[in-house]
């Protein structure tokens, strides 16, 4: 249930503006990969190209290749909707569907894609909520609106919703930046458990978080203001945080800029 992502020579554009330049990396299955870097360096933009979410923004396009276990995501004829079913995403701010109950939020991906068998739905709901570490807290109020939960619970609900469609890869775009420290800890624990089954990619502003949760870390930076973002280096998290090969990485993780 977990696949490898290979990116080679990827350039990301919005219209004529080049947002990210020349990224080549491998994201290992059943591991957590963290993207760090200063604001506006393109790490979120790059993350969104991994499941073609950047195409939602008008003018968003890429050059280069992204493959999922050697299957090209940008090959002609590949449906972006199908790509997103395989590579799920969790966003910065918890965004449960306001019109749906907790149960229907978790099952939104299945129900909106036409799954109707009650047994399958019930089974998936419980499994996803358990996997998102939320089952015990909500099992008695599954019919309540999803937005009635606290922020941290909503974010775990969104994670449950994302894994209910059984993706191969789970992308998380600063999943804790809108949460308090306790909820953040709960999500970090969850990320640690999710890597047993999924390939997880986390964008974070918080370097301690990257150091705590990830196996490998990629550092992004802008060459200069107005220039596209680029991948500076990527390595084991331990190596990046102890002996980075680039001076600029060391400056960033030791808090000298950004």
């Amino acid at each position, binding site marked *: 249930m977990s696949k490898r992502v290979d990116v080679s020579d990827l350039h990301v554009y919005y219209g004529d503006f080049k947002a990210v330049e020349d990224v080549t990396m491998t994201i290992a299955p059943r591991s957590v990969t963290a993207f760090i870097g200063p604001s506006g360096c393109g790490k979120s933009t790059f993350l969104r190209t991994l*499941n073609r*979410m950047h195409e*939602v923004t*008008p003018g968003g396009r890429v050059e280069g290749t992204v493959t999922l276990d050697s299957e090209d995501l940008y090959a002609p004829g590949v449906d972006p*909707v*199908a*790509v*997103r*079913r*395989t590579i*799920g*995403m*969790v*966003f910065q*701010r918890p*965004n*449960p*569907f*306001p*019109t749906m109950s907790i149960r229907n939020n978790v099952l*939104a*991906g299945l129900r*909106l*894609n036409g799954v109707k068998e009650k047994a399958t739905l019930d089974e998936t709901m419980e499994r996803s909520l358990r996997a998102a570490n939320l089952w015990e807290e909500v099992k008695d109020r599954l019919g309540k*609106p999803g*937005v*009635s939960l606290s922020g941290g619970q909503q974010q775990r609900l*969104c994670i449950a*919703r*994302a894994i209910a*469609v059984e993706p191969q890869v789970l992308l998380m775009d600063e999943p804790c930046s809108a949460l308090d420290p306790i909820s953040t800890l709960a999500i970090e624990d969850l990320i640690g458990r999710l890597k047993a089954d999924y390939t997880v990619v986390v964008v974070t502003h918080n370097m301690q978080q990257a150091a705590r949760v990830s196996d490998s870390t990629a550092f992004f930076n802008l060459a200069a203001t107005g220039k596209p973002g680029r991948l500076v280096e990527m390595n084991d998290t331990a190596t990046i945080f102890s002996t980075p090969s680039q001076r600029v990485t060391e400056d960033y993780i030791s808090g000298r800029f950004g």
Partner: protein
Amino acid sequence: MSTLLRAAPAPRTTALAPGRSRGRTLRSSAATALIWLAFAIALVPLVWIMWTVLSRGLPSMLHLTWWNKDQSGVGPAGFDHQVRGARHAIVGTLLMAALTSLIAVPIAILTAIYLVEYGRGRIARIVSFMVDILSGVPSIVAALFIYAVWVTTFKLTLVPACASLALVLLMIPVVTRSAEEMLRLVPNELREAAYALGVPKWKTILRVVLPSCMSGIVTGGLLGFARVAGETAPLLLVASYTQFLNQNMFSGSMAALPTLINTNVQFMSSDPISADRVWGAACTLIVLVLAINLAGRLLGHLTRVKS
């Protein structure tokens, strides 16, 4: 450090503080009084109209004949309660406004969805501009357009449904604009959440975006309904007036409350019965629109997203 300590109490000198605060209090009271006065002045015509219409119109409305009889048998003199009915006009107004909504609301909502969810570039700008133009079209011009197409171009006989067609032109921009506002209020994050689950765009709109703003769209539709229910010019020109009940949208003439008022208003000063009809019809129109609005708000409240 010592200079800072000595300087600190200076702004709180007792000589300055009371004078300044009295001036400010005075200005604040003056502004408050002005705002209340403006509010009261704005309220005057509203209360006046409501009082006049309700006090003169309610007595006619309270007769059962008002609701269940038309005006067949009305002669120049010798009126009684049996021939004061407005059923023909009430039914006509409701029928024509309902047919109008049936045609206009789907077109308007689809246009709003196009403008918010799909429209990019030139075509969207043109459509948006056309909606603006349409909302500025005087109702008599909309009626003339339908008349010209129906009678002059296609050589057909006018039927009550033609009035609905003219009203459609007036209702579309109202409902489109309000639905557009509501759709734009739905946060993009919800759309992205659905896309990220591998839900196609059309299904996202149908199952996530529209339910999130349904109550607002319903309210907009009812505002449009209220607008066309009180519209007069197209009815005068296209539906004409009859004192008989007509429930067929596709033949004959059809009465409506505004045209009932228009027909009777010229006899108001000489004939107290006509005056009763005018006030009664005005009152009924207000009550109908109010009732529909309240029903809509209730519906909106029940379908509203609870948080």
